[in-house]
């Protein structure tokens, strides 16, 4: 499979690296499910951004008289948590925190991973081996465990959470970037650029990065889902954002007390985390399909 794909990519991909993305809008080439997922994500982000001006109670205002109210209670459509705080409000503000903790580390890791991967891909054998073995070693840690170690080392807080999660995702991005670079680095158009005197930086900036960037970004988009999941998991075991601040994982952890008394209440944060961790991969995989299928319609 890889042989055939690589051969086709070799013929088609480098001809006009960036022109083929402008030819037809990328979004219209997404599969339907990805377009739906993208729409839902945009709506969700809009809703979360609008949360401060929506007519909902504050996510911090608790009332011990209204603890663990069920769904559709008066003034609390999604009920309340164990401290009587409005669940809808906490979920909206919690989603905001979780989105930041989900997206920011991927942005940082993609930037750094792209640098490591492209340098390793273009470098000689020694540098490549050193860098990629380093990446292998980072892979030897289960991601959850590595982020857990970093989270307890750096202390809890949104900033350190983002830092810890960034370090987790550098290795996967670097590996994808390196694979993509090694697929194209010996193609004729790169050799042509090199023989006409283009320097290392020029080849990197004009021949390599623009060609591999779409694939890497599609992959990064999918990673956001997995990262939201890990961030929520860390919140779930108390290593996320400190307590009164709403965050999906810690909300889930707080609602675990309701599992036996009022299970549907505990399901609300589950649904939001599930949605976030599914929607991003749906969009990312669609992007990858749209990009890799680019040769077939010409």
């Amino acid at each position, binding site marked *: *499979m890889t042989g055939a794909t690589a051969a086709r990519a070799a013929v088609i991909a480098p001809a006009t690296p960036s022109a083929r993305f402008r030819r037809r809008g990328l979004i219209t080439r997404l599969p339907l499910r990805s377009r739906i997922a993208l729409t839902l994500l945009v709506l969700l982000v809009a809703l979360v951004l609008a949360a401060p001006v929506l007519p909902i109670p504050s996510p911090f205002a608790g009332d011990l008289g209204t603890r663990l109210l069920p769904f559709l209670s008066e003034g609390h459509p999604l009920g309340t948590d164990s401290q009587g705080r409005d669940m809808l409000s906490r979920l909206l503000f919690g989603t905001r925190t979780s989105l930041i903790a989900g997206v920011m580390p991927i942005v940082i890791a993609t930037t750094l991973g792209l640098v490591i991967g492209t340098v390793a891909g273009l470098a000689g054998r020694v540098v490549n081996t050193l860098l990629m*073995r380093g990446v*292998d*070693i980072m892979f*030897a*840690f*289960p*991601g*959850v*465990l*590595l982020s*857990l*170690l*970093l989270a*307890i*080392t750096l*202390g809890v807080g949104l900033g350190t959470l983002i830092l810890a999660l960034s370090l987790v995702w550098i290795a996967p991005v670097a590996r994808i970037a390196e694979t993509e670079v090694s697929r194209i680095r010996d193609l004729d158009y790169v050799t042509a650029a090199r023989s006409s005197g283009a320097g290392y930086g020029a080849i990197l900036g004009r021949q390599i990065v623009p060609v591999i960037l779409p694939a890497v970004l599609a992959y990064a988009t999918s990673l956001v*889902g*997995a990262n939201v*999941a890990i961030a*929520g*998991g860390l919140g*779930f*075991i*108390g*290593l996320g954002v400190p307590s009164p601040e709403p965050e999906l994982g810690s909300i*889930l952890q707080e609602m*675990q007390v309701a*599992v*036996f008394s009022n*299970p549907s209440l*505990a*399901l609300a944060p*589950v649904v939001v*985390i*599930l949605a976030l*961790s*599914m929607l991003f*991969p*749906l969009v990312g*995989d669609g992007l990858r399909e749209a990009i890799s299928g680019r040769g077939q319609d010409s």
Partner: protein
Amino acid sequence: MDYKAITRNRFVRFVSARLVLTALTAFFVAIVVFFAIRSIPGDPALAVLGVDSTLEERNALRETMGLDAPVAVQFARWIGDALHGQFGYSYTQGRPVVDIIGPALGNTLLLGGAASALAIVLALVMGNLATTRWRPLRRVVDGVEAFFLSAPQYTVALVLLIAFAVVLPIFPAGGLVTRGDGSPADLAAHLVLPAIALALAPGAQMARSLKTSISTLQATELLPTLRARGLSPWRLSVHAHHNALPPMITVLGIQVGSMLGGALFVENIFSIPGLGALVVQSVTLRDYTLVQAVALLIALIFVVVLLAADVLNALLDPRIRVGRA
């Protein structure tokens, strides 16, 4: 030299190269675990003795804990002790770490084994369904696969717990055994839900790999040729799966990492006294000796599993031995 000797020679070279890399990785893993825990702010002696202690008392404890030595020496000591099976003393439980880890390790391996077995079955079923000729079925399987791949284990675990232990109380809600009932059936009933929660993602990932292998094979003339020779559908299927096996083993090896990570949450949700629950518990209690030991153990299990997967692959697929390690 005959052909068999050459391949054997290559196999030995491949395995020894992998062994060196594994040892190197294990060493770096140890460094990361040690220094991550060491750089946690705060004074362990103060944490143990409390704020009422005097400076002399704390210094004395630091000396007995070996914290007065240079960091490199401490690291060397820690590695040396770990190689001798000594992981120090848990200050919150008042017992040697080894005594705490032993039973937890057994429980996690039990859960991981059950989850792996389930994942393999799931992969075989889904991978084969995904390559049938009936398009609607393929699409449904693809959708299910995408869901399994990206649903976080702890959400799956909570949904399963609520659905099949609370709303429909078919399975026990937590623990590994019912008090006073040590039967294997009881143990199995306790393992079902947590094992499903851990098996979905690895199963789907392996199914994807199996699907790719089978559809690649379907694009060739091999299966029609074999069919024309009169092989039964069963024999055909065996041929198709043999080719798919090595990549599936690699995927399973990698996915063991996600299972070990997921065990952190799933064991917690189902109150299973395993390594994952132990990590979370010791993190909450700030018992860093214990965190250090369990984190090292989990990472080492993963490293060894990756090694085992590569060696098994080399045994199954001669092409791997010949290529670069």
